[in-house]
């Protein structure tokens, strides 16, 4: 019976967060690029980790990868994220601000909804009002768009919209590219009758099973090549069997073990977005023994990152450098890699009076590799003379429990812009501040950096803050797993890019050879 719980327990939760992460963008071109001319027609069946009754059609309450993929086929956002997580134009063809990053103007593209209506500024205002409606707390982008002043925002003609913030934020376009920020029709009330501007028209949906969509010929960006798109739900084993057995042409989020098997055969090809997610241990900086900076540094020094990557990730990834966002916009490129130094770790731990003592690590089978990583790390810490005792909690509630429980635990993060990661996890009042990193001076410096309108200057300020987190914070980012997609050998045009970016799951760009 273990197999069932494992299969169901590992359902990919999450969009921005649960699963996706850092990306080394270099070398992420199109796969199979040498292939012949794109061909028209055909049906593509893509399988994602399912969520049963949790799956929804309402784009504003999306949180599962499978939902995100389905909504992406039908709906679009004003802004999307490029392969380096930098905002790129989508329904908004361009944007500008008042010079202080407080009042923003977005010019809308000449796009048409599936019902024939032209996209206008009112659609955008209605969509945002729907997202931030406090009566419906599960609209996910509510908190990230909290600084938007809806009353002062308005339409400037049919194809320009002015959005006003309560405080300056140079990262505002990236917020409009977040999860659950799709543009719906003005007056959209019934999510079971989706009408968007996306490359596919809605046909049918059954929660926990499938969504079917067909090509929309009036799509503003080149219409799709495939005729019909099925986005199906299944756990990891079934996805593997389906793509190998010819029941699906695209399988999302595959394991390293499967990739090895698949690469030995001819029917399936693996598209790997290198180093696209982050695996870390997180230490609470206000809790003994990690309230002592020497202990945090000692743990960072004692980690054998390469071995963790080789064992836990089966070699499919890169070592981490205790910082989120490698390869993304604003990542400080010139950081030296953290080398293992057991002797220094040993002396730091001795100085802290921890030699021969026991520390507990709180883990759970909440995400692939968590328990394995904790167990292997315990062996590594033992080399520096500290016993790390592994305790496991409930997988389903782990994300929440870890906020308050334990002094050290596992953390995994998906691909998102670096400023968003900081906002969500590293400010005094961040909702997911799992390391309890609370420094008012850091908060102030971050808010000031975010208001700087020059990208170069802002980047420099962010760089300083990131170095502080890397050296003094509680994040021990040991590995950057690849994000693996399996496609049938006849599928062409699949991009190897991090999840949550524009070109991931772009079924309007793929074709069947």
């Amino acid at each position, binding site marked *: *019976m273990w197999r069932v719980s494992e299969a169901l327990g590992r359902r990919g939760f999450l969009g921005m967060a649960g699963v996706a992460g850092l990306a080394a963008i270099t070398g992420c071109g199109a796969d199979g690029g040498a292939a012949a001319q794109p061909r028209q027609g055909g049906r593509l069946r893509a399988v994602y980790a399912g969520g049963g*009754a949790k799956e929804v059609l309402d784009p504003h309450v999306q949180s599962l990868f499978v939902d995100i993929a389905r909504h992406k086929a039908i709906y679009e956002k004003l802004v999307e994220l490029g392969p380096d997580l930098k905002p790129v134009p989508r329904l908004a063809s361009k944007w500008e601000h008042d010079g202080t990053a407080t009042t923003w103007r977005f010019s809308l593209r000449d796009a048409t909804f599936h019902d024939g209506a032209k996209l206008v500024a009112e659609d955008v205002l209605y969509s945002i009002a729907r997202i931030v409606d406090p009566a419906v707390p599960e609209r996910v982008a509510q908190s990230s768009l909290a600084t938007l002043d809806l009353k002062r925002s308005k339409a400037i003609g049919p194809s320009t919209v002015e959005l006003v913030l309560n405080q300056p934020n140079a990262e505002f376009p990236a917020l409009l590219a977040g999860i659950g920020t799709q543009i719906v029709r003005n007056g959209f009330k019934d999510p079971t009758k989706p009408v968007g501007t996306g490359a596919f028209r809605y046909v049918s949906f059954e929660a926990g099973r499938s969504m079917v969509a067909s090509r929309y010929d009036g799509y503003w960006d080149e219409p799709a090549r495939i005729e019909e798109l*099925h986005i199906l739900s299944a756990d990891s084993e079934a996805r593997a069997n389906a793509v190998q057995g*010819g029941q699906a042409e695209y399988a999302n989020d595959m394991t390293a073990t499967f990739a090895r098997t698949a690469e030995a055969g001819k029917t399936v090809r693996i598209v790997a977005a290198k180093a696209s997610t982050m695996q870390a241990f997180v230490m609470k900086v206000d809790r003994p023994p990690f309230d002592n900076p020497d202990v945090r540094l000692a743990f960072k020094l004692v980690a054998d990152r390469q071995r963790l990557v080789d064992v836990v990730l089966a070699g499919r990834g890169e070592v981490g450098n205790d910082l989120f966002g490698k390869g993304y916009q604003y990542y400080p490129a010139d950081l030296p890699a953290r080398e293992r130094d057991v002797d220094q770790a040993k002396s730091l731990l001795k100085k802290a009076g921890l030699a021969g003592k026991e520390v507990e690590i709180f883990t759970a089978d909440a995400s692939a590799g968590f328990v394995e990583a904790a167990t292997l790390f315990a062996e590594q810490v033992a080399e520096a003379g500290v016993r790390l005792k592994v305790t496991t909690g409930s997988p389903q509630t782990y994300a929440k429990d870890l906020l308050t429980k334990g002094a050290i635990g596992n953390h995994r993060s998906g691909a998102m812009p670096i400023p968003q990661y900081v906002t969500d996890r590293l400010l005094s009042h961040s*909702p997911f501040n799992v390391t309890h990193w609370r420094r008012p001076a850091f908060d102030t410096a971050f808010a000031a950096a975010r208001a700087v309108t020059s990208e170069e200057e802002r980047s420099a300020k962010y760089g300083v803050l990131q170095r502080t987190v890397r050296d003094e914070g509680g994040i021990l980012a040991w590995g950057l797993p690849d994000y693996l997609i399996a496609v049938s050998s006849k599928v062409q045009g699949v991009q190897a890019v991090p999840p949550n970016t524009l070109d991931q799951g772009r079924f309007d760009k793929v074709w069947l050879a």
Partner: protein
Amino acid sequence: MRSYAAQRAGLAIVQLAVLSVLVFVLTSLLPGDAADLRFTETLTPSQVAALRAELGLDQPPVERFVHWLGNVLTGDLGTSLISGGPVVDIVRHSIGATLVLTLATLAIVVPLAVALGIVMGTRENGRVDRAITSITLALSAIPDFVIAVVLVAVFSLKLGWLPATWIGGNLLSSPALLILPIAVLFGRTVCLLSRQVRAGTVAALNAEYVTQARRLGIPRRQLLLRHVLPNAAVPGVQELARTGDTLLGGVLVVEAIFAIPGFATALVDGVETRDIPTVQGLTLVLAVAALLINLGADLVCNRLVPRTALLR
């Protein structure tokens, strides 16, 4: 017979009541509630708190249970905390696949098991008996998921004869979807059932009335069908009722492996997401089914061999 049925039905109602309390208490004991589990780093803690109030999870458990029970008594299974739709819809969408799978399995297993049981029982400890015993026991000893993996690897991935999963499939257009799942469920049930029929046959054959019947010169065929089979069938029918449990366990594994959107999948999803109304509703349906099957089995046995009423 009628008072026996009434007694049994009364007992069934008490069992249902106890069961629904148990399910409610047990699911409430699981760590976290439906709102907590939405905390997937897309909803902030304040959004989760608002959601909890919206779902009514901030009400005291007793109040929620009484509310639920009141609805059930009027035939309303309640609303899913996850999908927001009626639980009845979840039952309706998920029950079909499981029912087809279970009934199809039984339709193959029952005649085969009865035949095998009689063949084994009439040749007790003979070569055929031992051969069939070895094969069925071996089949039932292999865990379901191992059989499933091997069958999929050979018949789907290697030979490409049968579909590996139900993903995107439809029973009406491709009944072949049923073959591998049934093959997995087949082993254990056929073994359990045929063992019982065999035991019943052996016991009946050794009974004094059979010896007497033989002495009277009743032909073997008539003896077996008229006198031995009804007696031999009693443990088999009772076992058949219990096979429901075995099948449910098997269906759980099979549904997960072949991605079948059935009852077991819905139940596991419900537990994983702490969707208590759904878990309650699905369990209630299962419990009613189990009770009806057992009731039916008892009544059939009572009819086959009336003395079971006294021995019960």
